[in-house]
């Protein structure tokens, strides 16, 4: 068991190093000099001598004056100190502060959406597997939901429940007239603004899980062990329990695979609802050519997905004894 997790940890550490490196490489290999671009955007170059001095100043400020390998090492060094650089868009706020301010919104949106859709989708899918009327209603609805693009459903919800029905606000993380505070007014405004983005993420994922679980449970209920138990007169309750436990295993793997998709979906959803989370930051960073901010947000997303995958790996070992048996070596 220890060896298994040791091996897994090494794989995750390597993945993390590679991801961080790519994250550092991409802005640096993009065409164009960011400092030059910044200066050009300020107006026509009237005094070349002065421009050279300014460029030199900025290059030193951002650390572009040293060789690339030195820049790379500096980047890691700064990373360990929690320094992600300074945002250009919100100058002079450090990127880490901008990201940390947005992080709770994204987590508050993603965690409940992922966990609830997975949990309820599996429950409803398993029920649909053995009730005709549920099957006939859940299946088509599930197909439509899971085939819907995130932002399209988000726009539909914003239009129907927000603009037409006027129940929910369609933009922002809380009322524009409010300041963050510990009060009922602020909390309820937060909840109202949270609901629509959450609902659109939840519904799309829910449809996928329900369909998957329905098919898996039907397959398990016709498996040999289910038939054998039925031949020995076991009550349907026991057989269904076994089928559910077996069918949930591929769904756990599916959750690990779907995490990236869900995070991507949340970026689009946040943009649609102008929700102040990481997704919106990505959008703003791109709009304002704020590469330090973009780099910082992507770093957080990568680390988040890796941590979640690692947690799922651990959970999988707990729920599937076959992985454990494989670790200890089979005794004949």
């Amino acid at each position, binding site marked *: 068991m220890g060896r298994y997790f040791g091996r897994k940890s090494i794989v995750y550490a390597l993945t993390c190093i590679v991801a961080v490196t790519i994250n550092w490489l991409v802005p640096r290999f993009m065409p164009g000099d960011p400092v030059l671009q910044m200066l050009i955007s300020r107006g026509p170059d009237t005094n070349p001598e002065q421009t050279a001095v300014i460029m030199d100043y900025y290059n030193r400020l951002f650390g572009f004056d040293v060789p690339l390998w030195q820049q790379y090492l500096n980047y890691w060094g700064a990373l360990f100190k929690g320094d992600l650089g300074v945002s250009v868009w919100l100058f002079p706020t450090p990127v880490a502060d901008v990201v940390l301010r947005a992080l709770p919104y994204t987590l508050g949106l993603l965690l409940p959406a992922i966990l609830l859709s997975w949990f309820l989708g599996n429950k409803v899918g398993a029920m649909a597997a053995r009730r005709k009327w549920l099957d006939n209603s859940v299946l088509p609805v599930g197909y439509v939901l899971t085939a819907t693009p995130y932002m399209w459903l988000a726009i539909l919800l914003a239009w129907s429940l927000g603009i037409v029905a006027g129940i929910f606000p369609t933009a922002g993380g809380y009322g524009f007239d409010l300041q963050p505070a510990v009060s009922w007014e602020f909390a309820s405004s937060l909840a109202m603004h949270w609901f629509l983005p959450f609902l659109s993420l939840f519904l799309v994922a829910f449809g996928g899980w329900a369909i998957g679980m329905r098919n898996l449970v039907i397959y398990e209920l016709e*498996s*040999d*062990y289910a*038939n*054998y*138990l*039925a*031949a*020995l*007169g*076991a*009550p349907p*309750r*026991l057989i269904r329990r*076994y089928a559910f*436990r*077996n069918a949930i*295993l591929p769904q756990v793997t599916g959750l690990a695979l779907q995490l990236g998709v869900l995070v991507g979906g949340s970026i689009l959803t946040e943009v649609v609802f102008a929700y102040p989370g990481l997704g919106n930051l990505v959008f703003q960073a791109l709009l304002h050519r704020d590469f330090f901010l973009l780099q910082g947000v992507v770093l957080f997303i990568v680390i988040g997905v890796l941590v979640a995958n690692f947690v799922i790996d651990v959970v999988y070992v707990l*729920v*599937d*004894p*076959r992985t454990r*048996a494989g670790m200890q070596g*089979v*005794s*004949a």
Partner: protein
Amino acid sequence: MSLQVDGLRVRYRTLRGDVHALDGVTFEVADGEIMGLVGESGCGKTTLAKSLIRLDGRMQYVDGVVELDGVKLPIDDQHAMNRFRFTQISFVPQYAMSALNPIRKIGKMIAELLESRGFDYKSIQPELERRLDLVGLPRDVLRRYPIELSGGMKQRTVVVVSTLLDPSLLVADEATSALDVSNQKAVAETLVEFRDRRFVRSVIVVTHDISLGYQIADTIMVMYAGKQAEKAPAEVIVNSPRHPYTQALMSSLPEVGVRYEDRRLAGIPGSPPPLLNPPSGCRFRDRCPLAFDQCAEEPPFVEIATGHSVACWKAA
């Protein structure tokens, strides 16, 4: 009298019509008898085995009576049948490799199964362990997952589980077909030993392997196209069969000491009739070398000697 089956008819419902897989089967299995049920693929032997324990969704009971120890079994009522399963009549499947829930330890699965049927696992566990010893399985298989057992071990485990409550009748459906010969022998011997120790009183061994049936069965029933052809003590079936089909079947088996270089092993020409619309009269008559006019009428299944019944006009 352990098992009495009278005129059992079971059909498969298909889109093209009903397949008459079991068309009026009547036989008895005595207390302590091991009956081999042989025949080629599609003759209805597995349908018969399944009918006795659990009809699957496509199977439709038509008529006939099944009595076990004088009690009529409600074989067309899945729910009412549950009371008899495992306790009175039990089942060893062909698919022992996958018959155990892969994510439960075997002991825990047995405990959950027993408790779901209202039995106390703790009081049965000592007997369970004795029986594992008997079939040569270490007691710690109960603490293992099915994936940790070999195929032969799984099959023996399934036999022990199925017979744990000392049922009157055990139906073993091709229980050894998926095993290599040494494991086949171990499982076959286990079945005989369990009968001798009266863990089970009677056994029906469904097999396409006549030599295996001959080795462990007291009597053999030969089926053809959904009907019985012949039932007799194993010795008689092998040495002096009366039904032309049984005779042809026996002559298709290779014999020890005979070289088949010069002479090809005789098979049975033709193939069984379709059971979607079975022909009237004797169903073997198109392939039968002895067929004559009377075969257009259906031959009755009659006893021609003690314990020897045949459905053939020529044999009667």
